């Protein structure tokens, strides 16, 4: 293959970042995300065990579900027993708890925050409204299915789910992590174009880079 051809292929691999103003283009990376596989089986098993016992939750109350996260932190339910702690920045968080319905304006921020999290990362979606829209199924401003926009590991049904249900959801997530089934980060990369297509269909003013490092 000629060098030119290789360049072309590489250019196709780059993200367009079309919606960014020209002077900002250099500020953002245009590399596509890549899949990162697991380590050796036994070592990964040990790491997964540690990951499941130290879940750092992104403190982003996206909807009314966030109101039940507060009792979850206090004496009655005390999620810190299970190693779950809130973390204020996406760079350090490993679990994204989407607290209910996501309006168009919020889903944009959800995507940005999700992409900034460092993998392996997990998503818990609470409430019926993230599953099929719930009572907002006919609203023009809320999405109906969250798993079309970011990969979801655990859904917790209910409106709103009780703290006990949340703990059960977290335990389910832990089981999945320990079993090595939570590869949402790689899934997102593999179906990157499909996710981007869905995201761009609803976010009409896409003024951010195509992938937020």
């Amino acid at each position, binding site marked *: 293959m000629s060098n030119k051809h290789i360049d072309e292929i590489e250019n196709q691999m780059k993200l367009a970042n079309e919606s960014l103003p020209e002077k900002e283009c250099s500020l953002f990376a245009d590399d596509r995300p890549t899949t990162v596989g697991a380590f050796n089986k036994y070592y990964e098993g040990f790491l997964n065990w540690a990951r499941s016992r130290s879940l750092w939750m992104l403190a982003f109350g996206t909807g009314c579900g966030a109101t039940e996260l507060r009792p979850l932190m206090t004496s009655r339910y005390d999620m810190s027993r299970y190693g779950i702690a809130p973390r204020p920045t996406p760079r350090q968080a490993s679990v994204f708890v989407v607290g209910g319905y996501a309006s*168009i304006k919020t889903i*944009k921020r959800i995507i940005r925050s999700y992409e900034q999290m460092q993998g392996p990362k997990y998503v818990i979606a609470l409430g019926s409204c993230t599953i*099929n*829209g719930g009572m907002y199924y006919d609203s023009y401003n809320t999405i*109906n*299915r969250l798993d079309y926009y970011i990969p979801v590991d655990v859904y917790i049904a209910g409106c709103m789910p009780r703290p006990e249900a949340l703990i059960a959801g977290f335990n389910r997530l832990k089981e999945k992590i320990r079993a090595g089934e939570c590869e949402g980060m790689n899934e997102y990369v593999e179906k990157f174009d499909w996710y981007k297509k869905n995201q761009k269909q*609803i976010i009409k*003013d896409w003024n951010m880079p195509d992938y937020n490092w």
Partner: protein
Amino acid sequence: MEQLIKKIKGMVHLRAYGKQRDDLHFVTVDKAQLEMILAHLKNYEGFTHLAFLQAVDLLEEGKFRLIYMLYNYSTNVNLGVNVLIDRDNAEMNSIHKLWAHGWQYQRELHELFGIDFPDSPRVHESFVLEGWEEMPPMRRDFDTLEYSNRTFYQRPGRSTNDPAEYMKEKIYKNYPAAPVIRRDNE
């Protein structure tokens, strides 16, 4: 209250007056005289609190009805001042000089109903919607279900529990359908 209504009648063309409760009255005035009557009510009659400014879409009449809900702290009475404006090219005078939070409602009305308020600060800024391309969504003729079906992905399996449907399906399954009356011109 009657005195006040009389006074308003003397000042402006009072199109309608209604009393809902002892502490809630509605008056309807002309579009051109609205600002004057609001300023009068605020400065001289003690209606200093603007509870809200909202609109109702009267699609059948081709009008918007704006409601300026005022409140008087000393007499504890709410007075809703209604005004009808045209639905096409809807436009209204701004009240941001009378109340410092008036612009908020005007921005909301501009975005959700498409009513323009020239001179109102930040009226063209987005309020709750981002990148909206359809008609203003709170208008009556905007079908939110149709938009939702078109834009978002429905998860199959949603069922309805509408009582009428339920009865038709489960209880009166064998009940003969109501006779369809055919008219000549069909």
